[in-house]
């Protein structure tokens, strides 16, 4: 049944795209969008990954066992909050709060291309979008890494402890080597979520089709998904087809990322059971 749905869906998307796609302009149309999508996701991951690994370690190894389960539940609650509410928070509250940070970054670090102003006056910047996406990615990466950290063979940890290792050395010597591939695949699943996230980005960024690494200015590249969401209402049929085609590109990208993540997971599972 599921295969049926999938097979039906793929040509449906593809036919529309093939009929209406402007051959020459499509690449230049989708180029900045692809860049924006990847850039926003990368910014989000750079922020999110250290935090999620820290939280996962906190839950699996540092927190007293009585409060670890409620904490894990609270982190899962972060994942349950609808994305449109995150967008609301990012657009109305976080954008205001980041303004002083942005100005400070521009004043002191403007030689780095990321912070080469002019600083935004609304606060709706790529940095804000990245933070919102990071908050949405953290629960996913945390949940998976936590499971994997907790699966570390008890004997490995106890052996390290018995040799007099401190807690950090135990984690570095016993937990990290065991969990590496699992954490990588968790990060890739988070990447897939960040790539496909629509509403939060659409509500934070005011988009222009540019390619820029600048994190703190008012002109930002849109992402594929947010571009679809914000342009859909007033689209003519031809334009709709173009948007559907960009959706197909997004689908291909996320499919590849997810596929790679599953592959890493499957490979690591095999190597563990062997």
């Amino acid at each position, binding site marked *: 049944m599921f295969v049926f749905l999938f097979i039906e869906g793929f040509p449906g998307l593809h036919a529309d795209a093939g009929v209406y796609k402007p051959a020459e302009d499509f690449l230049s149309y989708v180029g900045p969008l692809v860049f924006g999508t990847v850039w926003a996701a990368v910014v989000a991951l750079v922020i999110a990954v250290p935090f*999620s690994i*820290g939280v996962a370690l906190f839950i699996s190894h540092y927190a007293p066992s009585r409060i670890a389960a409620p904490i894990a539940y609270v982190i899962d609650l972060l994942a349950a909050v609808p994305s*449109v*509410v995150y967008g609301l928070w990012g657009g109305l509250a976080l954008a205001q709060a980041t303004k002083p940070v942005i100005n400070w970054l521009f004043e002191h670090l403007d030689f780095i291309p990321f912070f080469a102003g002019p600083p935004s006056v609304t606060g709706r910047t790529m940095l804000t979008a990245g933070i919102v996406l990071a908050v949405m990615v953290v629960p996913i990466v945390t949940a998976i890494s936590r499971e994997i950290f907790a699966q570390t063979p008890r004997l490995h940890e106890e052996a390290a402890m018995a040799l007099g290792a401190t807690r950090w050395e135990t984690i570095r010597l*016993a937990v990290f080597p065991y969990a590496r591939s699992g954490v990588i695949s968790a990060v890739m699943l988070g990447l*897939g979520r960040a790539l496909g996230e629509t509403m939060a980005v659409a509500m934070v960024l005011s988009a222009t089709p540019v390619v820029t690494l600048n994190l703190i200015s008012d002109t930002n590249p849109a992402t594929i998904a947010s571009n679809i969401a914000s342009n859909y209402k007033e689209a003519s*049929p031809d334009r709709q087809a173009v948007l559907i085609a960009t959706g197909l590109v997004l689908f291909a990208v996320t499919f590849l990322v997810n596929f790679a993540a599953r592959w890493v997971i499957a490979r690591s599972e095999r190597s563990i059971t062997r």
Partner: protein
Amino acid sequence: MSTSTPLEPELDGLSEGLSTVRLPRAAVLLVAALAVAVSGGLALILGWGLVGTVVLAVVLFDIGLPLWSRLVEGGRYAADRLATCLVYSAFAAVLVPLVWLIWLVLKNGLGAIDGEFLTYSMRGVVGEGGGIYHALMGTLLVTLATAVISVPIGIFTAIYLVEYGKGNRLARWTTFLVDVMTGIPSIVAGLFALSLFVLIFGPAIRIGFAGSVALSLLMIPTVVRSTEEMLRLVPSDLREASYALGVPKWRTIAKIVLPTALGGIVTGVVLAVSRVIGETAPLLVVAGATDSVNMNLFNGRMMTLPVYIYQQYSSPGIAPPTGGDPPGYARAWGAALVLIVIVMLLNLVARVIGKIFAPPTERRR
């Protein structure tokens, strides 16, 4: 595991005997107090806000404690303390957005919600007033239709995977596709539903049912996964006992396997509904938006809560001349509060059901 990395420390402490010098027990509190004092003093002098002060205090603490520990205890313990500090700080930092968000939604949302907000639609409303009745009804109807579509498909797929297609090629491919579909971006599901309905009904089609189709694409994988796991937990002793009594396979599944796994399946379904109910993008694309009440899933545009929030946010109306936010923002926060309450209630219901119907067999975890 490679044990070539030497576990014994490169430090000088061991030569002094087994009893190494440790920091006093109160060191953590002491450094914390010092960090707060220093950053508080700096904030008073430089006139910083609360956020800057707290951030500076945490950074000072994270630097100060390992530094002291390095001077007294040596490098290994300093690294340990640094890691501990960083892990605790990371956890605290992640809690900040959650608390901030919930506080904002409660503060702004509670002000907006009253009897009128819950029972009026937005038809003909300019400026203040209006409500979410149409969006609430739309969300309930669309989600109901989604559940009606995806629950049978999901559960039957899971039954096939567990009971019939054990490890054959079709089952393997289905599992793989379900895995991949779990990560499909929601807007792509919306586009798929749209292109399907456009092919059938022409380009101007926007109906609530199309939204249900899009959402069920997102919901089916979740239902399949959770149901599959629950069915695998059913002990095969039960099935074999049933076969031994001469019960046919379909009856075994219907009378033995499903009732045993019922609690878990219902929990999974409720969680899937709570995930799907907050989806915005596909509904924005295929179900459209409207200001009036529409109870017919198969005719005309249909408003839903997430789309309502997005619409009120992106076109909030004109701010009152006395200053303050435009009226749409308050409505958006109110709708966000209602949506979050629904999602949290569903999560709670799922937990309670999971507790009540927990199968009387031993669990793996």
